[in-house]
């Protein structure tokens, strides 16, 4: 009986430890992703850049990126424009954003979301092969480093222009 208890305690400990560690890594990951999103803005050209009053970053689906993004939005600007964070649950709810981050925890299919996304939106995803499937940028982890794939067609169809500097660092998918 005692042996089993120890096992259970050990297991629980390990799991909680790993979970904690995992949680820590996850926080770091989304910090980085938030920073990347913020930095993408410098290398992408939107059409109405002159007339827009604020820079809107949208998140669809629950995501841990929300907290770091809000932190960034509080302290920084993009092109002297205030950063506004919006959350959406359903694709129909999506209004115009400069960048729309599609959380992996989103319940909806990519195509369903992409249909409803207005033009001139930089769609950023974090699921395998999502760039291929039509997202403009897709985060990937390569050799324990955060990298991103880009779909040039998607970017072009969205009416966006991507700086060569960015593309140089990206994994080009088609």
């Amino acid at each position, binding site marked *: 009986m005692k042996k089993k208890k120890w096992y259970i305690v050990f297991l629980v400990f390990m799991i909680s430890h790993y979970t904690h560690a995992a949680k820590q890594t996850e926080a770091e990951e989304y910090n*980085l992703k938030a920073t990347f999103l913020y930095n993408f803005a*410098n*290398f992408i050209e939107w059409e109405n850049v002159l007339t827009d009053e604020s820079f809107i970053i949208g998140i669809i689906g629950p995501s841990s990126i929300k907290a770091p993004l809000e932190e960034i939005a509080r302290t920084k600007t993009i092109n002297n424009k205030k950063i506004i964070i919006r959350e959406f649950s359903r694709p129909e709810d999506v209004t115009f954003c400069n960048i729309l981050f599609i959380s992996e925890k989103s319940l909806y299919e990519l195509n369903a979301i992409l249909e409803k996304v207005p033009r001139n939106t930089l769609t950023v995803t974090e699921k395998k092969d999502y760039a291929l499937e039509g997202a403009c940028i897709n985060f990937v982890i390569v050799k324990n*480093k955060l990298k991103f794939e880009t779909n040039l067609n998607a970017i072009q169809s969205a009416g966006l222009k991507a*700086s060569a*500097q*960015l593309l*140089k*660092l990206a994994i080009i998918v088609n």
Partner: protein
Amino acid sequence: MQMSTALIAVLFCCVIFVINDIKVFKRNNVSNKYSIAEIVGVNAVAPLIFNDQEAANKMLLNLESNPSILNAAIYNKNGNEFAVYRKVGEPSFPFMNKNARRPMFEDQIFIVNYRIFNDKEFLGTVWIRSEVTALKGIIVDYIKVAIFVLLIAIFTTVIVSYFFQKVITNPITAFVKKTKEISEKGDFSLRIPYGSRDEIGILSGEFNNMLLQIKQMETSLKEINAELEERVKLRTLELETANRELRNKSEELVRSNFELEQFAYIASHDLQEPLRTISNFVGLFKKQIVENKFDKSVPQYLNYILGATERMQALITDLLSYSRIGHQKNIQEVDCNEVMQEIIKDFDALIKTSNAKIYVDKLPVIKGHFSEMKSLFQNLLSNAIKFRNKNVEPVISITVQERNKDWLFAVKDNGIGISEAYHDKLFKIFQRLHSQKEFPGTGIGLAQCKKIVELHGGNIWVESTLNIGSTFYFNIPKNGII
């Protein structure tokens, strides 16, 4: 010599240029590397932002194409090495502690850096360490060029100086040589040869003009000098003549002074005789009056006194007329025939008394003084008549001979003659060879004749034999009184 100066200048310039070029080269090198650092930096913005070290390293690897770059690195904003590059064979270089402000030079290796900014946000630093390549090669090339330039310069200088010599230096040297020649010889008739129509030619032409003027001045100077000498000669001559005249005049003055003294002495001496006679007889007369013894000789005394006074009068008159000779200024044309006619008329009584026979030639017209000539002939004639032999009728002839420059007169008589011993004394004033008893007279006559003849520029002399007769000669120059 000028060539070497020019070449030294060129060499100096070359050296300066080379040094300057090396400096510029180094500077360019630095700025070139700085530009590279800048480009790297700009391209490193994205990798730094997205933390893509792989991309950054790949970028630095491109620097391989620039062999002078030895080391390069990108450091992030925390000063940690983000990406690094080193040339094959080059050890890694720690850029960390270097002052990121100015490029640093050490020997032939220098380091530049560029601070990377994105919108005022400091992202990191690019460091590049490179060597100044091929500097030695560059220097050698420069030296090659410099030598080449120098050679061209030498060549050009030689050609140009040869040309200039021909066109400029030679004409000038010839010019100088010629002027030296002219000034050394003092010959202003030489001219400078010239042919060109440039400034040297003009100068030569003007110089020749100047020489011509100098020559003319020289000539006129000589002429003036000659003229001056002539004038001086003339003046000297005039001066000499004046001097001579002065001397003559002073001699005359001395002579005449002497004559005057003699004159005064003899006059007073001769005047004393009659005065003595007068005083003697007056004394005797007075004695007789006082003693009241009048004697038969009283009338005789008075005769003696009268005689004495007459003699004194005659003496004084003759003296006066002697002294007056030559005071008349105007020269006349004197017809001697007229003179003789007057004299013969005057002596009419005397001639008749003495039964003298007078033969007169045709006499000329001479230049002189009428009354003096009359006195002359008068004296000679009266002497001729007076000094006659006893019991011999005087025969007197007056002849004249025309000579080249004068007239030679001769008054010949058959009188008592004069012994040779007295020929000199004859014409001296108051010299009497006979006593008053024998032949009365004042003794002035012949002296007067001499003075008159000499006044007319001639001479008087005598040829005589005792008891036979005398001939008095005198000449009167044709051109008149001097």
